[in-house]
């Protein structure tokens, strides 16, 4: 009976009910959408990093610290034989790292010069494009961001200056042979890529490398004094950045939920004061105070259910569309040092959908219950007379 009365009351309230339901459903949509975007961003960053940088993990030279370029000049040695065997069987790739300066159009630009195994298929870097080069210059692969920054295009030549293993400066002519499009700014900005054999010769570091990246299908345990870095270690920085940003996301959820809750709370409070006589009559006819409270709580719950249904009907197709085609982002975040896709695909997990629906439902129950508690303190006669105490 209470359920029927609740339905009648909600339908009877007309536009007021539907506005509440709509606002709540917009809030649910926004929560799911922003959470999805957030998860999508995180997942994309992880995927891109693993795809272009990490693969199954790496072995680093003991002195190598990618965040300290000063260590580069001492972080190279003959690649351990166990890793060389993996490289030869295409299960790993070598990278030799050094600082250098390039002079595009006479300007000096400090860069990180990386020599890489060209035949590799482990990382999503189009190194095989360099194999097509037949000229005499040093063939160079750069990213789109680096190309824009240095104004270098395919076929452009420029001077590269480096310091070899004997600490003698040397210079040569580099030529851009390919420009790659990568969402990973870490392999793009400030980087030039060239064949490892060429770089080993340039730097007088025959058969040496700085780190070796291995395929995700294998799991080598040790390689001399070289340090194994697993995927978990290599993505820790990104996870930290995302974790640091989590409070911002939580604040957004709280604001959106508060908006929805305030709407319902406001509507329920108004409804109680407008329906005092009706409540008084019901109580005079013998309805227990607890049932009156329950009636209003059910109305709140119904509000939440309608809102969830409306979200599915109204925003479901939109959420689905975004999950397939992504959301175009207005600016290129790679300039800010973030790995964010130009078309970000939100990811809605089942726990996210269920949790959001459940939280909204519980909050609406609570904000419906709180104002209706006041009814229990009213005397039926006062209620019928429309007197508030």
């Amino acid at each position, binding site marked *: 009976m209470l359920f029927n009365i609740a339905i009648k009351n909600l339908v009877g309230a007309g536009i007021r009910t539907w506005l509440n339901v709509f606002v709540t459903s917009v809030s649910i949509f926004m929560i799911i959408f922003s959470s999805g975007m957030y998860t999508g961003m995180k997942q994309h960053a992880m995927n891109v990093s693993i795809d272009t940088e990490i693969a199954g993990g790496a072995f680093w030279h003991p002195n190598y610290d990618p965040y300290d370029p*000063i260590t580069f000049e001492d972080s190279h040695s003959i690649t351990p034989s166990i890793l060389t065997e993996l490289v030869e069987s295409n299960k790993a790739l070598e990278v030799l790292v050094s600082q250098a300066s390039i002079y595009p159009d006479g300007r000096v630009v400090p860069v990180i010069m990386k020599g890489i195994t060209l035949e590799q298929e482990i990382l999503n870097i189009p190194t095989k494009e360099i194999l097509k080069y037949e000229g005499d210059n040093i063939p160079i692969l750069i990213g789109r961001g680096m190309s824009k920054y240095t104004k270098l295009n395919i076929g452009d030549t420029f001077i590269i*200056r480096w310091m070899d293993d004997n600490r003698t400066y040397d*210079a040569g002519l580099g030529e851009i042979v390919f420009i790659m499009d990568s969402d990973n700014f870490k392999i793009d900005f400030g980087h030039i890529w060239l064949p490892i054999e060429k770089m080993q010769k340039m730097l007088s570091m025959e058969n040496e490398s700085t780190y070796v990246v291995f395929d995700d299908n294998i799991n080598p345990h040790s390689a001399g004094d070289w340090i194994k870095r697993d995927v978990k270690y290599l993505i820790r920085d990104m996870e930290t950045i995302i974790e640091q940003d989590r409070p911002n996301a939580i604040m957004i959820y709280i604001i959106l939920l508060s908006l929805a809750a305030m709407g319902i709370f406001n509507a329920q409070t108004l409804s109680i004061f407008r329906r005092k006589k009706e409540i008084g009559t019901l109580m005079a006819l013998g309805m227990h105070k607890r049932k009156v409270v329950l009636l209003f709580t059910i109305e709140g719950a119904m509000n939440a259910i309608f809102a969830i249904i409306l979200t599915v009907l109204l925003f479901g197709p939109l959420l689905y569309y975004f999950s397939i085609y992504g959301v175009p982002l207005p600016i290129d975040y790679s300039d800010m040092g973030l790995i964010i896709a130009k078309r970000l695909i939100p990811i809605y997990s089942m726990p996210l959908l269920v949790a959001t629906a459940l939280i909204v439902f519980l909050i609406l129950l609570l904000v419906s219950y709180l104002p209706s508690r006041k009814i229990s303190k009213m005397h039926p006669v006062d209620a019928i007379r429309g007197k508030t105490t």
Partner: protein
Amino acid sequence: MIKFFIFFISVIFSEPNDQIIDEIVKKMDMNLNSENRVIKSKMIIHGRRTSRTIESKSWIVGINKAFTEYLSPAREKGSKMLKINDKLYTFTPQTDRIIQISGHMLRQSVMGSDMSYNDILEDKPLNDIYTASFEKEEIINDRKHYVIFLKAIEEGLAYPQRRAWVDAEYFLPIKEELYAKSGQLLKSTSMSGIRKIGERWFPTIFVFKDELKKTSKGTEWIIDEIEFDVDIPESIFFKSNLRK
């Protein structure tokens, strides 16, 4: 008689032999290096639009110790640089930090000029680190010059090859081209304003040009005052002096 005539002609007109080239390089070293010296100079850095002038005073002992204090402009005043053997330290009052310049950082330019820290650090006599070979004679500004090519005999030099145009009278490299190992021209220098100071000829104006930077218009280094063989207290070269 004929034999003597041929020998005489060959001595007069032949190219300088290795011994003579060595002598030329030694004389160059003698002119440019000294036991110690105190120099007050200014560096004029010509940029794309404007030029900056930086004044400094340097105390130099042999090839291993040098201390430079920048005197002006206000922005650079108080900055100091200390070279002890193969180590180079810099201090700027703004950061209040002593930084050791090493490795790739040596390639960076000093105060935005065309001179690198390496140019300052590498001060050994040419005869100790290069072998010289004669290329040709050339007349520049009506003066005879020997063009000699110097090739490094030790690893790790900033410029493994260099070509010098040595004035036949002053024994100073009036013009020099500095090359990378691959033969790529990296820097060019020239000197003028040659004066007789004591027993030596010494240039008072040096021009450095980074040949890789197309936008660079070169850096002039003008020596205003120079004193050779003066007493320089050892305390000048204490690291703690950088902060004073």
